[in-house]
Structures are given as C-alpha cells and as structure tokens.
C-alpha cells in the first residue's frame, strides 16, 4: 500500500488534488453495488473506463482528455466524471462543437508528442471527423516513413442505444476495422474496458475504442488482478468467455451478453456453445476462432452492425481461407443488424438488432436442429 502511494506521488508530483490511495479501482469497488461471483470486487463499465483514464493520467502527464461536455458536465454519459476536479482544465478540455475540429486538434497534439483521449459523444458524430481518424491518424506513421507516430485514442459509444433513431444507432466496427494503420477495440465487460483502454492509451498507434452506451451501467465482477493500476489486456487477443464443444459463437461488445444468454438456453437442450468475446476488431484474433472451429465445427458470428461488408463477413472469409474450412460441418452463420436505417419505434428497433432468441435459433440451425 505504502509503496503504491509513493509510486503515485513520484509519477505525478504536479497533481496535488489526487489523494494517493492504494488502488483507485478498489476504493471505487467498495461503493459499487453489483453481483460478484468469483471475486469480491465489482465495477460498472462506466467506472472501469473512468478508472482506466484516471490511472493513465496519473501515470503519464502527457495523457489528456478532450471532447464535448467532458469537463464541467462530467461527460455526456458521465464517463469522465470527476476528472476535471482531479486534473484541471489543462488535462480535461471541453471543446466547441466541431468533431472535425477537435479530432484534428487531437491528431495534431498526438503528432507533437502528447497522448490525447478524444471522446466523441457517439461514433455517429465521428463521421464528421473520419478524415482525421482515417487519413491523418491512421496513415501518417506510414506516410512519414515511421517518423511521426500518432498515439491518439478515439473513444465513445458505438452502435445502438435505445430509441435514438437511425442517425444515432450505427455500428462502425467494420468501417474502422478495414483501415491499415488503425487499431480497433470493441470491449464488452468492465474488465475488458479497463484493461483495453489502458492498453490503448499506452499504445503508440492510433486506437479507435468502441464502447456501448447500453453497457455503461452494467456491473461486472473484477478479479483482483484487474483492480491493479497496472492491469492491461493485450489488444488483438480474443477471450473465450465460455468453453463449449458443439458450436462456436463469436461476438463483440453488447452482443457478448446476448451470446452468453443464448449459450445458457442452448445448454438446457444439451448443446454446449463456446462463446468467444472478440475484444479487438483489428488486429482480429482469427487464431482463437480457428482453434475453436476446429473443436466445434460450427460457427456463428453475432454483431450489431449492418450485414453487408461487416465484421461477420470478414471472419467468415478468413475462416474459409484457412485450414479451419475443412473442419466446418455447416455454413458459417452471421447474425447481424437488419439491412435498414434503424427505426425509431422501440419495438421495431428491438427487431432490427440481434437478440438472444435469434442467436439460439441460428445456433440450432447451424446444428441442423431447427424444425
């Protein structure tokens, strides 16, 4: 405990406000209400993101946050809550309303040696900034002959929320996932969010960090390892959330929740589904998926994005291009969002995205078990 305290004060002497404490995460968890199964600690996704940013800002003075409403408002979704109080205006910056503008500022700051965390209120609005993300952040390192790295993190909610209409509901994993030069992360649990965001901030490459608004309030158990302030998860490695032998379900972000629920339902019928949490879109951990397919012989990919040219399309293509093709006993199944601008009416919106019953149905279809 004492060592950690001194570590804090050594790393960040300028931060007088931050009272050194054994672990920010542990203290937060003490107040968290939630169900913990394997461990004593738990945390909401929102808190995990908050703690990740706080720890990295303490650790490295060049890390700072910018975006709309991040400072005084504590974040449009309260993800940056308390950061302004702890780190001050120079490190938590409220910007005017111009995504193109502040993404550009973030890129410029990164090119000059700072480590910005650029928050978009949602990635739907980041389309206004996509030139900065793709053409500047993504390609400058290469085009400068390796001379100019761009260690920026673009983060914010991605995909559907609830009753917010077509212009607020798109999933951009496939768009950013196709860009060489970018890393793209799509975490699910609180542990994912904490470890991956810390890794993203420390990564010298530009990282697009796709969160999900509906997951912010969800509580997850946190291992004691995850509570440490040096806890990172490698970008580009998927996690097998649940082992199985009969069918592989690959998902990312909120769809992991539905996939696990589907696995529970399938288990009641004697079907053991293996659920893989992608964690990263790019680099894509195709090896974990391949190993799983070799074991189960059947593959489903579940995502919230549109079906055309999506994450599922890519995984399917890579699987059939690999030796795993010979292990498939059924066509690869993709469970995706509907090919329509997201309806506003909540009942139709619910039908426009995958849910647990649909995943169960498709899993059975892959097993030739549907009526």
């Amino acid at each position: 405990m004492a060592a950690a305290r001194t570590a804090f004060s050594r790393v960040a002497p300028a931060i007088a406000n931050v009272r050194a404490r054994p672990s920010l995460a542990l203290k937060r968890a003490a107040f968290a209400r939630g169900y913990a199964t394997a461990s004593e600690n738990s945390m909401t996704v929102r808190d995990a993101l908050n703690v990740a940013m706080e720890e990295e800002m303490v650790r490295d003075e060049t890390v700072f946050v910018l975006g709309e409403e991040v400072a005084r408002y504590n974040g449009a979704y309260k993800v940056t809550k308390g950061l302004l109080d702890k780190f001050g205006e120079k490190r938590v910056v409220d910007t005017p309303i111009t995504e193109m503008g502040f993404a550009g500022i973030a890129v410029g700051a990164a090119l000059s040696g700072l480590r910005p965390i650029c928050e978009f209120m949602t990635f739907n609005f980041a389309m206004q900034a996509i030139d900065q993300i793709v053409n500047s952040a993504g390609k400058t390192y290469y085009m400068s002959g390796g001379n100019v790295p761009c260690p920026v993190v673009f983060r914010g909610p991605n995909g559907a929320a609830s009753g917010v209409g077509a212009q607020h509901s798109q999933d951009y994993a496939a768009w950013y996932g196709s860009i060489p030069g970018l890393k793209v992360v799509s975490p699910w649990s609180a542990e994912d969010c904490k470890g991956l965001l810390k890794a993203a901030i420390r990564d010298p490459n530009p990282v697009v960090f796709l969160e999900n608004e509906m997951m912010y309030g969800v509580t997850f158990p946190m291992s004691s390892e995850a509570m440490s302030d040096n806890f990172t998860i490698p970008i580009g490695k998927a996690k097998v959330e649940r082992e199985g032998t009969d069918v592989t379900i690959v998902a990312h972000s909120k769809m992991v929740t539905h996939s696990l629920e589907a696995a529970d339902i399938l288990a009641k019928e004697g079907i053991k589904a293996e659920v893989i949490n992608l964690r990263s879109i790019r680099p894509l951990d195709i090896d974990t998926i391949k190993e799983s397919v070799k074991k189960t012989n059947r593959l489903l990919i579940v995502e919230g994005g549109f079906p055309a040219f999506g994450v599922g399309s890519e995984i399917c293509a890579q699987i059939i291009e690999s030796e795993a093709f010979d292990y498939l006993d059924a066509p690869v199944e993709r469970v995706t969002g509907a090919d329509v601008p997201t309806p506003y009416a909540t009942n139709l919106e619910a039908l426009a995205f995958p849910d647990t019953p649909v995943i169960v149905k498709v899993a059975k279809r892959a097993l030739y078990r549907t009526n």
Partner: protein
Amino acid sequence: MHPLSFRHSSLLTRACLNGRTLSTLPASTSLGCLPTTHSPTVSKLAFFNSVTGDSSKIPSYQVLDVFGVPIEGAKVPEISKQFAWRLYEHMQLLPTLDDILCSGQRQGRIPFYSLTSYLKYGEEATVIGSAAALADDDEVLSQYRETGVLLWRGFTLDGIMAQVFGNHEDSGKGRQIAVHYGSKQHHFHTISSPLATQISQAAGVGFALKRDPARRSKNVACAFFGEGAASEGDFHAGLLLAATLPSPTLFLARNNGFAISTPNSQQFYGDGISARGPGYGVDTVRVDGNDVLAVMNAVKEARRRCLESGRAVLVEMMTYRVGHHSTSDDSYVYRERQEVEDRTKNDNPIARFRLFMESRGWWNETNEDELAFRLRRDVIKAFKRAETVKKPDLKDMFTDVYAEEPWNIKEQREELMALLEKYGQVWEPWQNELRTLKNGGKPVD
C-alpha cells in the same frame, strides 16, 4: 513629401489602374494598392481584430425595450392588432406545447422530447419573429428548436402530435425521433440530428432555388442553428459557398448562451457569430432576439438583401436558453438557478410583447386568461387524440429504404403477408397488434 515616395506612388497608382490610363492621382493620397486585390498599401504595421473597427462589440438592433416601449429612434413596424395577436399567440403556444409534451415524456407516454423553446420562457421571439418575416414558401432547414416556424405556417397541433407519437398521420411514418418534424407542404425540411449539417445543405437548397426559373428571385433558403452548432465545419462551408457561388441563403443564428453545458465563453473567442459574417463577405446584422419586432424587421431586411444580391446574409439573434437543453438535462448542474430566474424576470420576450400590445390597447388580462386556457385545452386535446390514432399502415414497414423495392425487402414483405394470412386472425397477440394499425394490417401487394 519625399520625392521617392511621390515617384513610387505614381508608379503604383498607374499599376492600380491596371495601365488603363496614365493619368496620375495626387501624390498626397496613399502609396497605392496591391496589384490584384485593390488592397491599399500602408506604412504603419497595424493588426486589426475587430469588425466594428474600434474593438467595441457589434451592436444589437432593437425596437422595443424590455418593457415593450419603443426605444428612441426605433422603427416600429406597421402591424395590425390581428397580426399582433397572431404573433403573441404563436409565442405563447411554444411553452404551452413544451409543458404538456414534457409532462407526457416524464409520464412515459412518449420517449424523447427536446424542447422547442423552454420550460419557462426563452427563444420564442427569435423563432416567431423570423417565421413572420419569411415567405411561407421559403425553404427552411432548421436545427431542432424552431417548431414555431412550422406552427406559424399552419402546421396543426394534430400534425405535431402525429410526429411525436409516430401514428399514421405522421408524414415521417414514425421513423424519426420526436420533434424531428418535416413537412414538404410547409417547405420545412425534415430535421436531421447531426448538428449543423443543415447549414451547408441550405446553401445547396438556395442554389437549387436559383436554378429554378419559377422560384428564382422569389424564394430564399433559410438555415436556423444555434451558436454551438456554428462551431461545426459545416458553418464555414455553408457561408463560404453561399457567399461565393453564390446562392440566396439566409443564415439565422440563435445565440442562446449555451450548448448543453458549454457556455459561449468556451464555444468561441470572437464577438459571437456576427463577427464571422464579414470574414466571408456576408452582409450581417446582430439583433436582440428577445424583441419579436426587431427580429421581424431584421429578418425581413435580411431576406430582401438576400433575394436582391442572390447571396448569403447572416442574422445573429441574441437570446437566452431559459430551459434545460432537453428532457435528459438538468442545467442547474452547470449554472445558477438565480441566473435563470433573473433572465426570465428581466428579459422576457413574451412579457415584453404583451406590454407593447397592452400599451396599444390591444390586450388585457381577460385576453390573457382566455388565451392560456384555449391553448392548453387545444394542446391537450390534440395530445389525447393522438394517443388513440392508429399506427402507420403495415405496408410502410417495407418502404423507402430505396426508391424501388429491393429483392430482399420484397421477400420479407411476402413472407409477412403469408404469415398474416395464416395466423393473423387466429393468434391473439397478432390480432391485438393488427388492431392498432391503420387498415388493420390488411394484406399488401
């Protein structure tokens, strides 16, 4: 006079005239100007940072003071009592509508409602004053706080409720978030959520109007936006293009002090939005947005200039966002309640105009009570009615992704029709659902 500068000046003077004539100008004037821009040259190195030329703030045009009394030198427009009533009623309708729809949202009867004006008073004069100055068929592209323009143009309360509830009377077929109104008939483009995209689009609409012989010199395109949205790149593009192409586009900025929690001091450093207009060569005016007559005068003149020149004109309307940003916001987290109360009391657009009408003998307390009662009754009536109106026709589930129906959607529609034929009248959940739809979900070919 230094002989060198004399010679210098005559040479440059000739250059200024592009060699068209060799006559020289008196040497006592400036040294001349740069060859291509006609920008005069000077010897004093002086930086400038002010539109007004003396670092004072751009002034705000006003007709009535906060008590509804015409200020000295004011040009009060000639309006009839009926017209004044129409202005006032529409201003009062906005908060009435907000009150009732907000309660409806909090009661869970509608999911999302962003305020047209505010829970107390606020921007009514900016919207109604502008609407009154535009022609009914000027093309309007608004942000989300300008429902008053639609109402002024005759969009009914039933129409408002239809959109909010997404029933079959909604021309948007229930596909848009609440308050994202649109009406082709009223020349009001459907509201789009991403901020400021309407600003550059308006320049394009203006361009189309110019190309149309039937509408050229008759109509303008008009974009409304807040001072926060004006930070977006689309603002730059819109003004630049409408000024340069050019296209007859009116840009009406509501400067209400806040963009969610971000106050003006964090949104920009210059003198508001008006300071930017001259940067693009655009005729600009700043007006007291809480003075409905001033807004009307200013926008009328702006429109006239826009039509005459065929290019961009910018009006910045200064006002105050009294209410929260939306029903998901609590603004007392980032501003003092006292500040809001003070503004409501001391700079109230509705009260100001009422006092003006009273001074003319056009309004009294009885009128006020009657109006409040009638508006509330009409809004509630439309609200209750809309709750009972059936949802859109089943066939609308399959339309409008493309102009022509793609094969995959045709397949889905046919599948649904087959299922409905088989189970529609025998399975209770579906029977109940079909009953809520227009035409009872009858088969669609």
